[in-house]
């Protein structure tokens, strides 16, 4: 082999080796993974205490007069401003208020959507309505969105269902409202398409007017332009089976929803509505956490743009009269991510309590830190439940806020070990004032929490919904 040939062979071999190595490496390593899609935060999140400003948007108050309940777990008083504007009106009511540290303050408002603004963060806001059917409280939204999903509503048997949409931003918005039922099909009332919302304006749509006698309606609010806040307000008339509920919506379907505490009381009913707003079928695994352990999971299949109702009473694996936690999660196929769902719970008692029925949204998975407000005025706390949503044991601490700042674990509630799916229940006491004072639930994995306000009503009829925390407040 001549010198030239040797050189030539060496060059060709070197070039081929380099190219081959690169191609093999590219195939083995694969394309650079794009940055994982960050799911939008839940609709109601307590801002960092060091935030420069924060705001809460209470759309439900457009449908029912009531108050905003401001919870300040911090160690300094917080001042804020509430601006309230009734639906269809340009008149604005403004109130300034101060929330003492470690306490909850109620600011009564006339009927109208409200914006609560603060010069900082670390404060949670609920919207509460009190009526003949009892008290309902739900978190206001801490962000606007161009999509809102509600798993349940009903216009059957005289139930009043209203969809309140509020545009708190300076950008005009246009929204569409549509519905889906368990029987399949999408209901798109023409009157609910292209609803304009000027800055600050709200609108309340009485669904009964256009979709009557529907036992279960999942609702979808889409902002074609702008960004809005939406809430469903449902009111069941009559003694014995009445109740009012603010149903806070989800800004995006998620793969996991949980209800930490449920109970099938005699004569009562628990049903869960699973709404699939996506275009792919969802296979939902329903995990049941009983006192004696995990029950065999159920599988529910939900068609695209449809809802499915799971009656807990009909499940023999759920013992009557025993508390249980329930988790809904979707699984992913080999080449697709898990489709998201939205889940709501309808809990009713045997009519002996007030409220007798309540609708509430589940808590999204993936949150490991919660701020639990006190129960609304006039109510007494029943107990706090925490359910482990991770696939591994987690350690949970329930912390109270000290007057001079900081959060300390409550006695007996420090680093409690929870097995996957297990429920930790904490009853209120002088030492553990859950429900009387704001508390922080912190875990080293995803958990869901639930605070029930009254021992008379079954869990879930009027739960106090906690707020996810982005950062520790203490």
């Amino acid at each position, binding site marked *: 082999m001549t010198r030239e040939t040797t050189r030539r062979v060496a060059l060709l071999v070197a070039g081929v080796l380099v190219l081959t190595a*690169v191609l093999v490496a590219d195939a083995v390593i694969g394309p650079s993974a794009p940055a994982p*899609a960050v799911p939008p935060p839940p609709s109601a999140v307590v801002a960092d205490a060091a935030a420069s400003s924060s705001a809460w948007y209470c759309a439900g108050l457009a449908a029912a007069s009531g108050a905003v309940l401001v919870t300040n777990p911090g160690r300094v008083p917080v001042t804020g401003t509430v601006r309230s504007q009734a639906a269809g009106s340009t008149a604005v009511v403004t109130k300034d208020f101060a929330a003492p540290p470690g306490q909850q303050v109620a600011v009564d408002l006339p009927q109208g959507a409200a914006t609560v603004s603060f010069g900082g963060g670390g404060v949670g806001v609920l919207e509460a309505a009190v009526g003949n059917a009892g008290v309902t409280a739900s978190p206001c939204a801490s962000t606007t969105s161009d999509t809102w999903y509600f798993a349940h509503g009903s216009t059957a048997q005289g139930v009043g269902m209203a969809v309140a949409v509020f545009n708190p931003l300076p950008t005009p918005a246009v929204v569409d409202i549509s519905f889906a039922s368990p029987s399949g099909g999408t209901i798109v009332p023409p009157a609910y398409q292209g609803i304009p919302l000027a800055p600050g304006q709200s609108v309340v749509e009485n669904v009964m007017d256009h979709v009557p006698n529907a036992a279960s309606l999942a609702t979808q609010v889409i902002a074609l332009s702008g960004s809005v806040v939406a809430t469903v307000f449902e009111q069941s008339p009559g003694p014995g089976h009445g109740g009012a509920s603010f149903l806070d919506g989800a800004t995006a379907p998620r793969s996991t929803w949980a209800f930490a505490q449920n109970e099938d009381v005699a004569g009562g009913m628990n049903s869960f509505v699973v709404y699939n707003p996506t275009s792919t079928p969802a296979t939902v695994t329903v995990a049941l956490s009983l006192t004696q352990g995990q029950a065999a999971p159920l599988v529910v299949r939900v068609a695209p743009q449809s809802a499915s109702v799971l009656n807990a009473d009909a499940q023999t694996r759920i013992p009557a009269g025993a508390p249980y936690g329930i988790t809904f999660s979707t699984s992913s196929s080999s080449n697709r991510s898990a489709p998201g769902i939205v889940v709501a719970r309808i809990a009713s008692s045997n009519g002996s309590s007030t409220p007798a029925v309540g609708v509430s949204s589940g808590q999204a998975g993936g949150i490991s830190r919660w701020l639990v407000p006190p129960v609304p005025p006039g109510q007494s706390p029943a107990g706090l439940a925490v359910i482990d949503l991770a696939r591994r044991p987690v350690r949970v601490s329930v912390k109270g806020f000290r007057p001079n700042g900081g959060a300390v674990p409550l006695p007996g509630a420090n680093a409690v070990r929870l097995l996957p799916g297990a429920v930790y229940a904490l009853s209120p006491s002088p030492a553990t004032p859950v429900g009387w004072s704001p508390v922080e639930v912190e875990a080293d994995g995803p958990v869901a929490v639930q605070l029930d306000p009254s021992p008379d009503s079954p869990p879930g009829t009027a739960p106090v919904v906690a707020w996810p925390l982005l950062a520790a407040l203490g």
Partner: protein
Amino acid sequence: MEDLAPAVVAVIVACDPGPWFEETLQSFALQDYPELAVLVLDAGSAEDPTPRVAAVLPNAFVRRLPENAGFAAAADAVLGMVAGASHLLLCHDDVALDPNVVHVLVEESFRSNAGIVSPKLVAWDDPSRLLHVGMAVDKGGAVVDRVEPGEIDHGQHDGVRDVFLAPGGCMLVRADLFAELGGFDPAVVALGDDLDLCWRAQVAGARVIVAPAARVRHLERLAAGDRPLPGGAPSLQALQRRHELRIVLVAYSTFHLLRVLPQVVFLSAGEFAVAVLTGNRPRARGVLHAWSWNWSRRKELRAARAALRERRRLPDSEVRRLQVRGSARLTAYVRRLFAHGLEAAHAGAAALPALISATAPDGDEGSEAAGGAALVNPAGALAPATALGTRRRSGVVRNGAGPQPAEAPVESGAAASPPLSLSARTVVWAAVGLVLLIGSRQLLGNGLPSMAGLLSWPAWTTLLHRFGTGWHAPGLGGVNPTSPATGPLGLLALVLGGSSGLVQKVIVLGCLPVGAWGLARLARPFGSPRGRLAATLVYLALPVAYDALALGRWDALVAYAAAPWVAARLARASDLEPFASGYGSDRAGRLRRRRLLRQVIGLGVLEAVFTMLVPAGAALTLLMAAGLSAGALVALGPTGWRPVRRMTGAALGATAVTVVLLAPWSFTMLAGSQRWQAVTGLALLPGTGPGWSSLLRLAVGPIGDSPLAYGLVVAAVLPLLVAVRHRLTWAAMAWGLVLSSWLVCWTEGKGWTAGFNITPLVLLAPAAVGVALAAGLGMAAFEQDLSAHRFGWRQVATVLAAAGVTVGALPVLAAAGGGRWDLPTSGYGEATAWLSGRAPAGGFRALWLADPRALPGGGWQLEPGVAYAVTDGGLPDSTGLWVGSHPASAATVADDVRLAQRHRTVQLGQLLAASDIHYVVVVQSLAPIIPGYQSPALFPVPATLTDALSTQSDLTAVPGQSGAAIYVNEVKAAGPVGANLESSWTYRGVLYGVVVVWLLLVVRLARPPTVWARARRRRSRGGRGTSRSRAGRPPAARPRAGAGIDAPAGVGR
């Protein structure tokens, strides 16, 4: 009993016969055939040949014809004159028969029942050399000889056999057959009459054979061009073409004519195109004449076809048995191309004898037919190529490096490349210019859209003012040092008359020709004009530059323009052939060091200009040095370290010079790694970079997004397969450039380069230089190295490479049709023009947020995949391309945006108002999306950013064109936008000092130093290299050992 030999009449057609005529007549007199009569037909000779005939053949008949209408017409006269003859022996007047020729031919005619019998034709002066022993023909009528030119007769062809064509010098034809066919075709005045007769004879059922036992000497004065042609006849080449075509049109039946004619048309078109491109006008005219002449005689042709149809006794399928397959002319061209090179191939077979005679020991000139007849030896290749390769010294060796000192290594045995004709170069460059003009026509007429790196230019006064004061608007305005590009660009704008639009077009579109020019200069020292042309064409055909234009990346265009110049400087620094200085390692050390210093300074000035326009230029220069060095090490082994040291040293030294020349901007970057963003680029979102297939095709944009683009890269592999010596070395170094660029791009895309984020379009400029240079070296190797090899895989590889270049250029050619290289029509200038109308009095600022690839102008990094910039009064102008090394106070704006992204504020407007920001513009596409009008590339920003902005309580989204979301800040700004700040005198002092250094260096580089001039004079007196006389005329070149000598006359001119 009497011998009843059939009567034969020998017909000699004479026209002004020369002194050989008596010998011809004597040979007829000595025939041993008893029944032979001789008839001399004089075709219009000036002098009556009768006395000459009578002196030798007193019994011969002489008939004088009134004019010279050609051999065919003259021979046809015998039809009316001779009766009762069995055979006719039709002869030229320059043949000499052996005594037994007539006897043998007649005998064989009866034995083989042949209608036409041909003897063995040998050279007049040397009967041992064969001329023809019958001939073959291809389907298109091109004649194929059975013997090689100058072949010695050892009896290897002594066998009676069927042939297709009996050459016309001497043939025995059955008289009845001749009469039945009507004789020759009188329209065929010369060259082809024999083919016509033999073809028609076979169609009529007659055999055509060769009887080698009959030997005839032939002078071949007609084929040599010494014979007077009938009045008005064109050249021999044109005659041959038209007669071949006529015969094809007459002789085939309808079915076979329909089969063959398209092939003939196709081959003719190809021959015409090649002839035009290579400047071979006679050949091109010949092809055209053939078709026009036959078209004008179509009635004649129809009549001839009808006549032949009546006589047809043999189908064409039988006649075709004796035809050569394929196209003999094309085969001969390809063989000449690979065996002897382009010049020989285009000169045709006529030039081959001259080539062969230049090398053959006895100077035999061969015996090819004149006029480029495609004569192919079916037995194999022509004279051994190795013999030609070691002897050939054709053409003049040209070396663009200038004088060649004696110790410069010169190849032995390598053939230098003949020059490219001016007409060919003109045609090629005219075509290239036309393509570029067509591809850029809309940009030249309508202007460039304002987007990405293509922004409007301010007035030259503004540019110079900003240069002088150091103040720049990007960010919140300030005197943070930035690139001094505004100074020279302001001067350029002044020179161009101050028209901003013209300045922009010159600066943007001018990068293409500047890059091509640079590559031509880089390829020049290799001494192959075609290689240089090929390299430049490939560089222009690569999609890199056009993708840069389509994506609005002016920095990539500048890199495309500068990279070849940088490569050329690095090549000279390497001191490798053919860029060697010739000063050796020990001689003239002082001169060598001074030269090296000059190289470093020159490269440094170039790098400084490059870097001030494209801040990544310094990094690119170092990358190119690394790539070339890697290739040199692989190609040269341990001996490669010396050029590696030189190139690396030159690159590092040049970078140091650049740092000095770009002060004080360069000094600020040394203050910390966080200030290197301007040089290293901004990070993209993971997974959004180009894939490896786009990188391999050098097509990371909309143009070239096709597998065809691989063709150019494939063509660049050729020199690695066939080149030798320094061509192979430089091919390896070119590929070192390519591979290093690809590797850096690929690792950047994987996110492995930790802060090094130069845009792939810029990084691919060196790869483009490498591919183009390698392609040019492939062409040079084809010309200079391939002749040493027989036909084989190397030639096949060459064909594949040529096909690769052709195919690879198609995507760019296709993109030229659009007229604007896929650049969007409308930019953000129009979409944001209204911003100032709605802004508060006193001025305003705008915050721009976008993917770095879509951001108008330059910016800083907000997060991977998002860049930001703050501008005064809306869309930035081109000075916004060069942001300071640090955002300074503009960093607070970025912090405010991050607060909003982390949900730590809902009043971003209030925070931005403190910086007088009235608008927030989020750009998500290269240009506005206008449905049905333009769909530019999309570069979305993370949803967390848009969601954060959409949920602010004091930002109002403005409905507008898709592609950019604009938010109006509802909070009133704090006050008027800050006035210009004055830079410090220290800054100005440094800046002006650097300007002085620039001027000194440029002047120094432009003027050769005294010592260089002295050295040149000393060399010229010592006789090294060529020299100039006092009159300024170069003296005659003197042969030097190992150097090229002048070509023999007639070759390469």
